[in-house]
């Protein structure tokens, strides 16, 4: 029996300073009940909410452009994308303060984590509690750790508590199985991913699943390298054949002296022209280095100029220049309280003359004049250096312009010489080859020997990679055999769950079976079949119908992975697509079945007339389903505001269904 997993159940989410949601700086969402549905109009950020939720758990946001290669690489290569994902969605002003807080339960453990939206491998806060027997006991103190150490502690704990072998496996399962997001990446149609899922669900344990993942990756890489070396070797072989053919060429007798001289002269010209190009390019590189050096110096000087200038100007802030003081003294009217009369100007001037602040009566330190003149002296020095740098730069840029023209001319010369040479060689190919054979039989042998050595080397590498691939395949086959056994044991539990869910949606008996390939190309996948109907029926499923068949597969896999006592949560982003009204209703039915088995759904939905939400609401009722309106989070578009009544009516319909009134 494979390891039974414990999956996280999110209970509370708090988004702080998440600028996308413009109307609330702190958004708190309690995910009570079995179904939490975040409902809102288009463009309000529903998908982003789900992405943020997954980001909080895993530190990762899926990169839709990246092809899946292995579980470990998926995590490693997604970190950089994830650290940049919220750029633009969160304003620069909120960048530092933005964060997401999560409370979740994994088996008997409670997790509290806070993660910055821009640091995938750090945690701002991490709390872990045991809740066994309803007693909440803290496990460890993580407050003194650095943010990345905190993340590492979290990753280790949750991996252990979920009974997985690596945090990367958690990320993979969360993103590819338990979440149906806007990528619409379907398991049934993605063999690479599905194989990994099967190892995790039906393999002996997650450790073996990790081995299978690495073996599959190494096998793919070795195979790809072997093919590559083979191709390179065939290219070299072709060149060897060409050269050997040339050596055996029968030349006609003719006078080759003039042709030979002309050819050699052109070869020399080409070499000279080539050398000149290289020489000018070297000179140009030196000049560019010089430009970079002077520019860097200018940048440093400008920065200092700005800094000294600020100091110089801001030192002027003597009281006598304060606008309030000037107005009070000039107009005999207090700029602060408005009192008028000669005494006002007199009092201000007297205090100023004795270095007393006219407002609070404190003694004022007189501005150190020497500091200002020192600052101005430095400004003059920098100014001079900047002027010198500019002269130098102008000179170097002029030299660069000259060299660039020289380079263009030299390249033109090289081009025309090469053209002449090629044309001569084309026109006199047979004669020149004969010359070459006469003169350079030894040279040709040396060249051929080099090519042969290269080909042997490539063939050796090819064989080595094929051997490595076969070795990995053999190891993988052993694991695959264990997986097959695991699947056979689990099939009786898993397949009926899938069939039941799929039938509740499609009204058809779908069958699912494991297909394994052995021998030259091992692999394992799930095949979908419609009972007693040809396979092509499957292709008649619409895109939206395929989405729900795939969701049924994820539900069945999740149920199987957590065992009879466990519970799973699926995260589903706006699933309704373009189903017709009957299928919408049946999709709601399918979701309800999943819930009735004690599992959870966190979903987002558009506010439209979809029957999915209504049917789900009718089946779950208020006790098990919560509808969260998103309209208060952010500003609606003009169209959405104008048509607000439509949204209200739809909300009311769903609320009524929840209350059992419809």
């Amino acid at each position, binding site marked *: 029996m494979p390891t039974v997993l414990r999956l996280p159940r999110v209970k509370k989410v708090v988004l702080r300073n998440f600028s996308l949601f413009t109307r609330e700086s702190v958004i708190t969402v309690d995910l009570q009940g079995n179904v939490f549905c975040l409902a809102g109009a288009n463009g309000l950020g529903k998908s982003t909410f789900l992405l943020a939720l997954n980001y909080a758990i895993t530190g990762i946001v899926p990169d839709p452009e990246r092809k899946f290669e292995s579980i470990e690489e998926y995590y490693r290569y997604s970190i950089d994308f994830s650290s940049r994902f919220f750029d633009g969605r969160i304003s620069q002003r909120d960048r530092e303060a933005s964060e997401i807080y999560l409370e979740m339960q994994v088996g008997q453990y409670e997790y509290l984590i806070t993660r910055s939206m821009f640091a995938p491998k750090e945690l701002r806060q991490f709390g872990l509690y045991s809740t066994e027997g309803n007693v909440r006991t803290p496990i460890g103190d993580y407050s003194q750790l650095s943010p990345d150490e905190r993340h590492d502690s979290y990753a280790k704990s949750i991996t252990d508590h979920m009974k997985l072998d690596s945090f990367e496996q958690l990320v993979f399962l969360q993103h590819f199985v338990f979440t149906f997001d806007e990528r619409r990446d379907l398991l049934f149609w993605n063999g690479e991913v599905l194989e990994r899922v099967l190892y995790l669900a039906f393999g002996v344990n997650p450790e073996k699943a990790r081995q299978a993942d690495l073996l599959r990756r190494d096998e793919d890489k070795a195979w790809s390298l072997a093919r590559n070396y083979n191709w390179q070797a065939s290219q070299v072989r072709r060149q060897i054949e060409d050269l050997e053919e040339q050596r055996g060429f029968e030349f006609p007798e003719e006078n080759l002296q003039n042709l030979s001289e002309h050819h050699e002269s052109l070869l020399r010209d080409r070499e000279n022209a080539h050398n000149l190009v290289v020489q000018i390019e070297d000179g140009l590189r030196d000049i560019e280095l010089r430009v970079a050096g002077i520019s860097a110096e200018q940048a440093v000087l400008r920065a200092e100029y*700005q*800094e000294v200038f*600020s100091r110089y*100007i801001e030192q002027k*802030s*003597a009281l006598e220049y304060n606008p309030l003081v000037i107005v009070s003294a000039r107009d005999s009217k207090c700029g602060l309280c408005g009192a008028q009369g000669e005494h006002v100007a007199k009092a201000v001037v007297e205090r100023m003359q004795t270095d007393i602040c006219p407002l609070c009566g404190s003694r004022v330190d007189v501005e150190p004049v020497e500091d200002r003149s020192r600052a*101005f002296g430095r400004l003059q020095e920098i100014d001079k250096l900047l*002027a010198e740098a500019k002269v130098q730069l102008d000179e170097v840029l002029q030299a660069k312009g000259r060299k660039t023209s020289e380079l263009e001319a030299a390249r033109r010369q090289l081009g025309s010489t090469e053209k002449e040479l090629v044309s001569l060689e084309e026109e006199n190919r047979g004669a020149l080859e004969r010359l070459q054979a006469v003169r350079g039989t030894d040279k040709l042998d040396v060249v051929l020997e080099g090519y042969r050595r290269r080909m042997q080397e490539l063939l050796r590498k090819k064989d080595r990679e094929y051997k490595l691939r076969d070795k990995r395949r053999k190891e993988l086959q052993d694991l695959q055999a264990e997986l097959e056994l695991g699947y056979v044991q689990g099939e009786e539990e898993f397949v009926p769950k899938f069939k039941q869910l799929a039938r509740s949606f499609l009204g058809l008996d779908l069958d699912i079976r494991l297909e394994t390939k052995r021998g030259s190309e091992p692999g394992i996948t799930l095949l979908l079949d419609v009972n007693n109907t040809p396979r092509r029926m499957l292709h008649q499923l619409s895109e939206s119908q395929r989405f729900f068949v795939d969701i049924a597969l994820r539900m069945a896999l999740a149920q199987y992975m957590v065992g009879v006592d466990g519970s799973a949560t699926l995260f589903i982003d706006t699933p309704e697509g373009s189903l017709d009204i009957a299928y919408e209703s049946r999709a709601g039915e399918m979701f309800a079945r999943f819930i009735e088995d004690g599992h959870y759904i966190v979903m987002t939905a558009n506010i439209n007339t979809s029957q999915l939400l209504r049917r789900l609401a009718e089946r779950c009722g208020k006790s098990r389903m919560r509808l969260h309106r998103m309209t208060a989070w952010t500003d609606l578009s003009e169209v959405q505001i104008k048509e607000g009544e439509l949204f209200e009516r739809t909300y009311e319909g769903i609320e009524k269904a929840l209350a059992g009134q419809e």
Partner: protein
Amino acid sequence: MLNPYATFDCLSIGAKLQASLGNVAPTELQLFAYLSCLLSLYRQRPVAEWGYSFAGTEYGAPFSPEINSAITQLIIEGLLFEEDCYLKVTDEGQKEYRILLSLSQNAQREVFLEGACSSLLALPISIVREALHSEPGLRSALKLNSTRMLLSEGNPEMRMLYKQFETLGQAIGMKVDNLMIPSVVWLTYLSQFRTTADIQENLPCQK
């Protein structure tokens, strides 16, 4: 941190406009700073060398945050004096302007600032303001009712501006010492262009 170039430009433009207008509004400081920057571009200096940037606002006016900060700081330092929304360069400010002019960084800019401000000898300020509304970058911001960075390389407006400067250079020569001449000629062209364009835009539909 205070931008030294914007700070000097405020004092220089302020001193010059004050001499001809009596006082100067902050928007006029922005306007002439932008015109000066355009003249440096006309002299084929890279925009990046100007030292600070401008945005075109939906009102068709140029705005530089660096100029804005410099005005605020110069008021605090008592080098500018604000009264009824207009600014004056104080005696201290005038003194400081002359001191700063001795730095070559500023002396190089002075020719453009002088060229821009002396346009007022030939054109009323209202014409200058209106004409600049037709400068390609500002015109685009005004027409599209949006704020955008001005003089960014690669913008179609920049190509149009270079084209206008090329024509202007061919007409009066790139090497003229006094930049007032190209400034006035170009502003006059823009103001006519604006009138023509407005007339065309307001023509009744041809049926």
